[in-house]
C-alpha cells in the first residue's frame, strides 16, 4: 500500500532554497489572498452607509482606531504595499509568461544555472522593483501626511 505525500497548498509559502522567482510567487499568492479578503471587507464597510450617518461615522472611527489605538494608516499602508506589489509583479508575469524577455533555447553548461530565471527577467525585476518602492513611498507619505509628491 502506498501513502499520499502531497505537499499541499501550504507549500506555496515555502519559498526557501528555490531562488527569487519562487519568493515572488509566494508573495504574489499571499498578497492576492490578502487583497481578496480586503475587497470583501471593503464592500461590507462601505455598504454601512445605507444604515445612516451615525452608523457610518461610528464604523469609520472604529476602523481607524482598532482597540483604541490609531492603527488605521498602518493597515492602509500594508494594503497599499500589497496592491502595488501585486500589480507590478503582475505586469512582470504578463511579460515573461508570454515568452517575452526570455532567452532562446540554449545549451546548458555546468553548473546548470537556469537562464530563464536570470538575464532580462532579473532586469525586469529590478526596474519594476524600483517603481514599486517609489509608488509605495509616495502612497505611504500621502496616507500619513496628506501631501502628494
Amino acid at each position, binding site marked *: *500500500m*502506498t*501513502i*499520499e*505525500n*502531497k*505537499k*499541499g*497548498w501550504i*507549500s*506555496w509559502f515555502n*519559498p*526557501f*532554497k*528555490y*531562488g527569487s*522567482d*519562487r519568493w*515572488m*510567487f*509566494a508573495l*504574489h499568492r499571499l498578497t492576492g489572498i490578502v487583497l481578496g479578503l480586503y475587497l470583501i471587507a471593503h464592500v461590507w464597510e462601505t455598504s454601512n452607509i445605507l444604515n445612516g450617518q451615525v452608523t457610518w461615522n461610528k464604523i469609520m472611527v472604529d476602523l481607524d482606531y482598532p482597540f483604541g489605538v490609531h492603527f488605521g494608516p498602518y493597515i492602509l499602508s500594508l494594503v497599499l504595499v500589497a496592491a502595488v506589489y501585486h500589480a507590478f509583479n503582475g505586469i512582470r*508575469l504578463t511579460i*515573461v*509568461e*508570454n*515568452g*517575452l524577455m*526570455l*532567452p*532562446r*533555447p*540554449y*545549451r*546548458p*553548461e*555546468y553548473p*546548470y*544555472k*537556469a*537562464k*530563464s*530565471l536570470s538575464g532580462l527577467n532579473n532586469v525586469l525585476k529590478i526596474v519594476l522593483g524600483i517603481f514599486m518602492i517609489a509608488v509605495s513611498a509616495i502612497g505611504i507619505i500621502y496616507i500619513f501626511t496628506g501631501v502628494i509628491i
Partner: protein
Amino acid sequence: MEQLILKDFGEVVKTVTFRVRRYDPEKDDAPRYEEYRVPVQKGMTVLDGILYIKEHIDHTLSARYSCRMGICGSCGMIINGKERLACQTQILELGKDLIKVDPMGNYEVVKDLVPDLSKLFRNHQNVKPFIIRDEEEPKGEYLQTPGQRERYAMFTDCILCGLCLSACPTSASDELYLGPQALAQGFRYIADNRDLGFEERLNVLDSKHGVWRCHFSGACSEVCPKGVDPALAIQLLRQVMTTNVFVRFKQKGTETGPERKSVSGVS
C-alpha cells in the same frame, strides 16, 4: 605526487547525522523519522551515506538508485529541504552536520524513500512524446539543420527524475496538473521541425490542467539536475499557444530526404 593524491583518501573527515523519513507499509500507520550516525569520507555523496546505513546500520532502509552518476535519474530525494539527486549531492558540500532526507513530495510513497512515479510517466505519455507524421511508413530520413535542432536540443536532456514535479507549487495543490516535465517535453516535440502533431497535442496541453496552470515560480528550473530549464519551455509553449489564437500556428513538417536503399538490398 602519488602521496599527494592519496593523502585524504578513505580518511573519515567527520561524522554526520542522517535523519531519514521511514515508512513501512506493513508495520507503520504513519511515516516516522529515524536518525543514523554516518562517518563521512571525502567525496562521499548522500547516496553513499544511505548505502552505508543500509550496509552497516539498518538493512530495512529502501531507496531507488541505479547508476550513481546522475544519468538514470532514480535517486531523487528532498535533501535538506531541496529536491536533489542523492548521487550528485556531496555531503561535505552541504556543510551541515544534520542531513534530513525525505522522499519526493507530490508522489505517493511506496516505502521509505521510494516514490511511486506512475503519475510522472502518465503525464509524460499524455503529451505524446514522439514524432507524429502523416504518412504511415517513412520513405526516407527526415531532414534537419543544426540550427533547427538547436531550437529544442536542451529539452532532450530530460532524464525523467521527477524532481521538478516535486518542487512545483502548482503540482502540490493540483493533482491533475501535467507538471513541468510533461509540458517541457510537449514543447520539445512541437518545436521539432519534423513533427506534425501540434493539433493532436492541443487538447492535452491547452487545458485547465495544462500549460495555463503554470505560474512561473521557477522552482522546476532551480532544482533540475540537468539544466533542462522546464520553466523556459513552458513559457515558450505558452507563447506558441497565445500566438495560435491570432495567427494559426502551422507546422510544415520537414521534407523527407532522398529514398535510400539499404546495403543488404532489403529496404
